[in-house]
């Protein structure tokens, strides 16, 4: 019954006119930030921090949090319409979302993305409210061996992303893993593959690679032929601008999948929304009745990752608010903000500031509703972007890509890299190499290597530590099972063929 009291307290705080206003400001800004490729919620929150000094603290955290989870709504827009990942986690949405747009189903894609984000975002808030403290303590049991196992499980997703040629998928993944290793080694401060360039000391930014390989390469491919208008079918009629009831029914599992996986991954400090999206996509494909259709424009392939990266924000707030431990860049800045305002984040935050905590949690319900109302009507509007003639659109996409990359680090070097990866992405398209495994390798490579070396450092070099701990053992077994699956499948089909030939 305490929870009812808390909820009432929370709603009384969240629904006050001032806080409602700031909530709206936050989610609106967040959506805009999410739509823009490159610029992320972390940088935006940091830039707005000075403005919050004069604000009431509850209102300020409501607004900043609004930016955080609002940005996940916007990230899918450019991914679906232009194959430009608006946010790191939206890379997975590009896979099926853009294909849907090319088939004239941009409206349903955008719509289901908003709906999935709403469902999963709400589940994330529910989770935050109900299971935060015990889940946070459980998350503490995740040490380096468990993280390694999680990353290995993520890499096993390559099986679901490789498409026709497994060899090419693995090759792409290895290149991605290599790209992740460029930079300064964390443990020995040695530089690896930096070619003497100071700008490479911190490694290659993921945004540069993802925008280059997806967006720029796409433009280059389309430049091959004049008259690119045939490639974009603009949806006509209101029925084609929204997901149908059948679409919603198809995505039932995706909603659940995205919500749960996203939230759980979010709780783990250091595991980000990109991993959550990949895992959710892989899980969706694994349990689908028509897995081979994924990658060609399947609506569940949009719903699952979009849901995952939204409930991840709810999950990421769990360690922040219950333990005072930030799990990602954006939550780290939120933590700094709380400290700057004199609020002490830690296990006692909920006790000391119940108004703030419950006000924030309930404001997230409100915020998610606001975002749904904001985003759904905008879908037909956004879909009209496809009407823009291609010869305006393509320079525009290139311009957005440059702005996006430049806004991350203000470095012209990164823009050069963008051009380079655009060419790499184009070559990959011509040679039938799938882009997703490369991106997957790059996202997970860092974490995988780090977790392995940390585990071995902690166990004095004994590899067995990965298998003796129950959590990591379970995940590694799952990963191995997934990896062996296609081989078993091939052997079986080979046998069937052999039997047929015999007969």
């Amino acid at each position, binding site marked *: 019954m305490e929870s009812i009291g808390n909820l009432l307290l929370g709603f009384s705080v969240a629904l006050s006119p001032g806080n409602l206003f700031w909530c709206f400001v936050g989610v609106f800004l967040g959506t*805009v930030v999410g739509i823009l490729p490159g610029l992320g919620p972390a940088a935006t929150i940091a830039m707005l921090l000075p403005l919050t000094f004069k604000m009431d603290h509850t209102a300020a955290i409501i607004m900043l949090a609004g930016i955080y989870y609002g940005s996940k709504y916007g990230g899918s827009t450019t991914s679906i319409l232009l194959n430009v990942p608006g946010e790191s986690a939206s890379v997975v949405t590009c896979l099926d979302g853009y294909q849907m747009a090319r088939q004239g189903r941009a409206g349903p894609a955008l719509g289901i993305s908003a709906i999935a984000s709403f469902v999963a975002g709400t589940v994330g808030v529910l989770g935050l409210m109900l299971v935060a403290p015990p889940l946070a303590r459980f998350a503490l049991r995740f040490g380096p061996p468990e993280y390694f196992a999680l990353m290995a499980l993520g890499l096993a997703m390559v099986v679901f992303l490789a498409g026709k040629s497994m060899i090419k998928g*693995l090759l792409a993944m*290895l290149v991605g*893993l290599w790209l992740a290793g460029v930079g300064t080694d964390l443990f020995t401060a040695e530089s690896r593959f930096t070619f003497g360039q100071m700008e490479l000391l911190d490694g290659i930014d993921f945004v540069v690679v993802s925008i280059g390989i997806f967006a720029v390469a796409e433009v280059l491919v389309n430049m091959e032929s*004049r008259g690119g208008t045939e490639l974009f079918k603009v949806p006509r009629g209101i029925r084609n601008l929204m997901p149908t009831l059948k679409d919603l029914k198809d995505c039932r599992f995706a909603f659940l999948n995205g919500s749960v996986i996203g939230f759980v991954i979010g709780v783990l400090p250091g595991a980000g929304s990109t991993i959550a999206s990949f895992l959710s996509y892989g899980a969706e494909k694994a349990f689908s009745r028509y897995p081979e259709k994924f990658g060609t424009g399947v609506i569940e392939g949009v719903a699952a990752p979009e849901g995952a990266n939204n409930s991840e924000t709810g999950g990421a707030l769990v360690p922040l608010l219950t333990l005072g431990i930030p799990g990602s860049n954006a939550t780290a800045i939120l933590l700094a903000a709380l400290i700057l305002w004199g609020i002490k984040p830690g296990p006692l935050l909920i006790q000391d500031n119940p108004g703030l905590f419950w006000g924030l949690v309930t404001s997230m319900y409100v915020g998610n509703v606001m975002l749904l109302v904001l985003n759904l009507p905008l879908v037909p509007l956004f879909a009209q972007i496809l009407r823009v003639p291609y*010869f305006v659109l393509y*320079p525009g996409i290139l311009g957005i890509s440059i702005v996006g990359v*430049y806004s991350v680090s203000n470095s012209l070097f990164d823009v050069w890299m963008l051009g380079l990866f655009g060419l790499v992405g184009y070559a990959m398209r011509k040679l039938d190499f799938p882009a997703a495994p490369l991106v997957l390798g790059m996202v997970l490579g860092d974490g995988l290597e780090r977790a392995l070396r940390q585990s071995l*450092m902690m166990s004095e070099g004994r590899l067995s530590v990965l298998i003796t701990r129950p959590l990591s053992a379970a995940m590694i077994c799952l990963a191995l099972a997934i990896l062996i699956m296609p081989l078993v499948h091939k052997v079986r089909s080979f046998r069937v063929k052999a039997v047929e030939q015999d007969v």
Partner: protein
Amino acid sequence: MTIHGNKELLTGICLGAFGAYVAFEAFKLPYVSEFGPGPGFFPLWIGIGLTLLSVLLIVANLFASTAPENSKSQSRTAIGRALVGWSGLMLAIGLLHWLGFGLSLALLAAFLILALERRSPWVALSVAFGLALGFHAIFALALGLSLPAGPWGF
């Protein structure tokens, strides 16, 4: 061998060479550190993996059917156009430092429209101007992002 086969062979060789390079460089780095694998460990295995898989790719292709599975016309003009576009992009990036974002984007747009789409110069100019202005209005003014600026401040 068909064009298709050649393409795979070339890819395999290039990737194999890349893998060998990575492994070679990784070999120079310490393989083990104080506790556990050193900085050279992962890249070495990645390089070896790349080389092995490249060989596998070449071999798998040797046994593939001689007729390409999907007859995509590897038209030279198509690739040529894309590369021209790419060169335009790289040129524009190079000009960012000297001319600033607005002008470079305008030039890129004009180049693409004139050279690749063969539209009239009026279309090219208006689109170029419009894009540059639009970008400046949205990104520089409304959002306050810093764009690469030339000597004229934009």
